[in-house]
């Protein structure tokens, strides 16, 4: 069995997809944020690899073709942005304010929590760029002397949390405007959150995509400034 899996060309891709579909089924049955298809698929793959003692690199031989599509898919987020361009023009002040509030809220809350948990400076700057897209966050973390692997872990965890809790938080916080929902999701949880925003609606997805770009670039400046504080 193990020999077969290690040699199967489609093992990693199929395992990931089965995990995701399994997550979709669980989510449909239980309707809980915890049964998030992305989270379930990740847990499913990890448990499977541990049980069958398969190395990550053997899984990734085939699974890497999923990641391979990420750059063109992210670029295609420009399509909903283009289709909702009029909404940007009509609401640009609200959108920019919301994104800047998110960027400052992120840096401030990380600062306060780092002080409370007595994190060292390295871990503090490692976390500062955590709400933006991973490639950009890696650049900021490196520039500020952070630990890049930990930054990427925090970025991905942030994305998964955003994907899991977007619907619930918008409901609890009474964020009902589709534009505001999209900005909230994209500012807090970059592309992984945006995948959820696209499922909620096209306007939410378009706004979330825009927030990835604007909050990404703004966070670079904010992270550098905040790195001097603590």
């Amino acid at each position, binding site marked *: 069995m193990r020999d077969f899996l290690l040699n199967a060309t489609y093992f990693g891709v199929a395992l990931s997809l089965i995990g995701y579909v399994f997550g979709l089924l669980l989510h449909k049955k239980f309707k809980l944020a915890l049964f998030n298809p992305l989270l379930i698929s990740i847990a499913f793959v990890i448990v499977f690899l541990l049980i069958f003692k398969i190395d990550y690199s053997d899984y990734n031989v085939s699974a890497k073709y999923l990641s391979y599509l990420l750059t063109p898919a992210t670029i295609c987020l420009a*399509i909903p942005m283009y289709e909702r361009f009029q909404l940007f023009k009509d609401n640009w002040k609200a959108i920019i304010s919301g994104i800047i509030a*998110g960027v400052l809220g992120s840096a401030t809350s990380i600062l306060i929590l780092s002080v409370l948990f007595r994190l060292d400076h390295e871990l503090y700057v490692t976390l500062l760029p955590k709400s933006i897209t991973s490639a950009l966050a890696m650049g900021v973390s490196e520039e500020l002397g952070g630990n890049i692997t930990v930054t990427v872990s925090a970025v991905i965890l942030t994305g998964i949390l955003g994907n899991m809790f977007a619907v619930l938080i918008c409901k609890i916080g009474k964020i009902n*405007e589709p534009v505001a929902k999209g900005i909230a999701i994209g500012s807090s949880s970059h592309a992984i959150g945006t995948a959820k925003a696209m499922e909620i609606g096209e306007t939410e997805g378009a706004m979330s995509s825009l927030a990835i770009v604007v909050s990404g670039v703004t966070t670079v400046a904010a992270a550098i400034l905040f790195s001097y504080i603590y």
Partner: protein
Amino acid sequence: MLYIKQIAVILTITLISEGIKFFIPLPIPASIYGMLLLFILLNARIIKLEQVKKTGYFLIDIMPLMFIPAAVGLMDAWISMKGRIIPLVIITTITTLIVMLVSGWTTQFMIRRKG
């Protein structure tokens, strides 16, 4: 035919974005340049919506799958952080929820104020 042309357009833009990233020494990922480039090309009508729409929405639809391998790959990183993992998870969770609320509330407040 339809999909061949659309995939060709999207992958050409991806390649150009990688070129931009190669020549500009900033830590900005190719995907960000690509989003801006495709957005500009659509607005300038150099690329028409129908030339990318179907394939574009297909890629967006399957996007959640593309995060699985990287997240699984962090398995070892999480294990190596054991001592610090609890504060990290707590801080990440709290800040993510705070940012979502602050950003959403601010946007909604501004939209509704406008009336």
